[in-house]
């Protein structure tokens, strides 16, 4: 075949930095190298100007005031700052946090830390389609609840939560609403104030910006929200996050935000067509294929599909020399556990092991999708030829009734 094409369909893992973003960042390494906190000379002033401009670009993308943007090293830090920062700041109000089992580890592990610090955390189950049960959420709220943390869009399935409804519940009970919006910002319209989100985490490298820089939106008026700094030393970012600002990174994040604001709608339209082509064709051509997660409330560029009786890592090996995707299989995780998100959706371990996540991006072409479709069909069929459980299924054996000799 001799096809050296390298196709990247793993944009939910990270995105390539847009060349226009790289170009915007470059001067800030050597020509304009100042520390944005240096108040007394043009080097500092120029750096500060660039940071302020980036703040405006980002604020414009999400419809907030630039004073409400705090720069961090990425969404993981922003999630930690929001959760631990609220827990510490509002300790006198209460100690209970509500979140969901499908959140990113940055949220779940921060919550576990809060539990060690004496906090109480409720980890809500989700429904089969990945959506939070609003009634269960409201019932979990107590007079000690200080924060609800629900991600805007899920990284594995692309499922988008009912943010407006959750915001209404939180407003009704006077509870702060925080969202890890890493997978949504810059890809779909995200406006925290419109839905009642008070804190919001996101990062550059999921929206064609650089790695190593992110932000936390912190609402300033009605209500005025504050977080206790987790990084002390100098009082930067209104005392909420100390540390010299990553000027080139911030400039990049700003540029990425501006490009996203301008191009998001057409990217989403183009990508949802390609995603649908990929998804529909695969499900049509391969029997026993299942799409995971709510397909109506979903990011336009993501599809997570389980190919029954085929293991994910093995399947990826049939094409991973030139196509990059992710899998929910235990074999692909460091912990040897299958995807906890898919398990929370009630998939069952075997379908979790058989899942592949395709996340398209700005640089994905239709030609690449066509190539990927063919490679996947070949790969799944090849793996099914090797699979004893596919053979058993074809013979009409009820696999659920088999007593497996586990080791």
């Amino acid at each position, binding site marked *: 075949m001799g096809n050296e094409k390298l196709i990247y369909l793993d944009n939910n893992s990270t995105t390539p930095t847009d060349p226009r973003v790289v170009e915007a960042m470059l001067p800030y390494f050597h020509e304009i190298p100042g520390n944005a906190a240096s108040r007394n000379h043009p080097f500092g002033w120029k750096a500060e100007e660039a940071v302020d401009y980036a703040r405006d670009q980002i604020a414009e993308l999400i419809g907030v005031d630039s004073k409400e943007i705090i720069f961090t090293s990425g969404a993981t830090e922003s999630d930690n700052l929001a959760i631990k920062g609220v827990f510490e700041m509002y300790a006198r109000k209460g100690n209970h946090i509500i979140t969901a089992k499908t959140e990113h580890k940055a949220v779940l592990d921060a919550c576990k830390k809060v539990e060690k610090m004496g906090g109480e955390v409720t980890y809500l189950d989700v429904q089969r389609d990945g959506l939070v049960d609003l009634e269960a959420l409201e019932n979990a709220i107590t007079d000690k609840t200080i924060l609800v943390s629900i991600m805007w869009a899920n990284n594995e399935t692309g499922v988008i939560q009912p943010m407006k409804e959750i915001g209404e519940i939180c407003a009704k009970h006077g509870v702060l609403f925080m969202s890890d919006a890493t997978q949504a910002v810059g890809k779909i319209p995200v406006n925290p104030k419109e839905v009642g989100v008070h804190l919001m985490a996101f990062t550059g490298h999921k929206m064609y910006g650089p790695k190593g820089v992110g932000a936390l939106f912190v609402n300033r008026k009605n209500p005025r929200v504050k977080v206790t700094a987790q990084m002390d030393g100098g009082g930067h970012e209104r005392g909420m996050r100390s540390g010299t600002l990553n000027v080139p990174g911030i400039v990049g994040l700003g540029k990425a935000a501006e490009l996203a604001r301008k191009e998001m709608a057409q990217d989403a339209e183009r990508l949802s067509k390609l995603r649908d082509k990929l998804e529909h064709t695969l499900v049509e051509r391969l029997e026993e294929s299942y799409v995971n997660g709510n397909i109506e409330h979903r990011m336009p560029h993501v599809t997570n599909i389980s190919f029954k009786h085929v*293991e994910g890592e*093995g399947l990826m*090996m049939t094409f991973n020399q030139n196509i990059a995707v992710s899998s929910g299989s235990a074999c692909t995780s460091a912990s040897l556990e299958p995807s906890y998100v898919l398990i929370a959706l009630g998939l069952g371990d*075997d379908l979790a092991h058989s899942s592949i996540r395709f996340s398209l991006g700005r640089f994905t072409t239709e030609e690449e999708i066509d190539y990927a479709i063919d490679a996947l069909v070949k790969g799944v069929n090849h793996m099914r030829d090797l699979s*004893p459980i596919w053979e058993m299924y074809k013979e009409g054996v009820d696999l659920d009734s088999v007593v*497996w000799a586990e*080791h």
Partner: protein
Amino acid sequence: MAYSEKVLEHFKNPKNVGTLDKSKKNVGTGLVGAPECGDVMRLQIEVDDNSGVITDAKFKTFGCGSAIASSSLATEWLKGKSLDDAMAIDNMTIVEELALPPVKIHCSVLAEDAIKSAIKDYKTKNADVPAETKA
């Protein structure tokens, strides 16, 4: 995690993929693992009743590249061996041959289990046949 050349080779060109007729008395079938674990191996042997030597072996595996390579390698090694020699196959020799990293050692263990399970099945099916049969 990079795969060794040998794992890639077995994955691209697996040896002895297929199915033997398990209704035949001289075929032993081992089925180990579970779909929930992400690993299922079915390994079959065909044994010459007179010599007690494995004349054919076939496998099918639901699992990752290392699992497929381990079971493919196992069928290669089984052909031509006596049942006793086959029972002695140790998973660590599979690990060494395929250069499996620590996180994939369990794939070789499953392959060893599959071998033993196939032999056990053959022996159970042939328990009524005395060790030495003179026609």
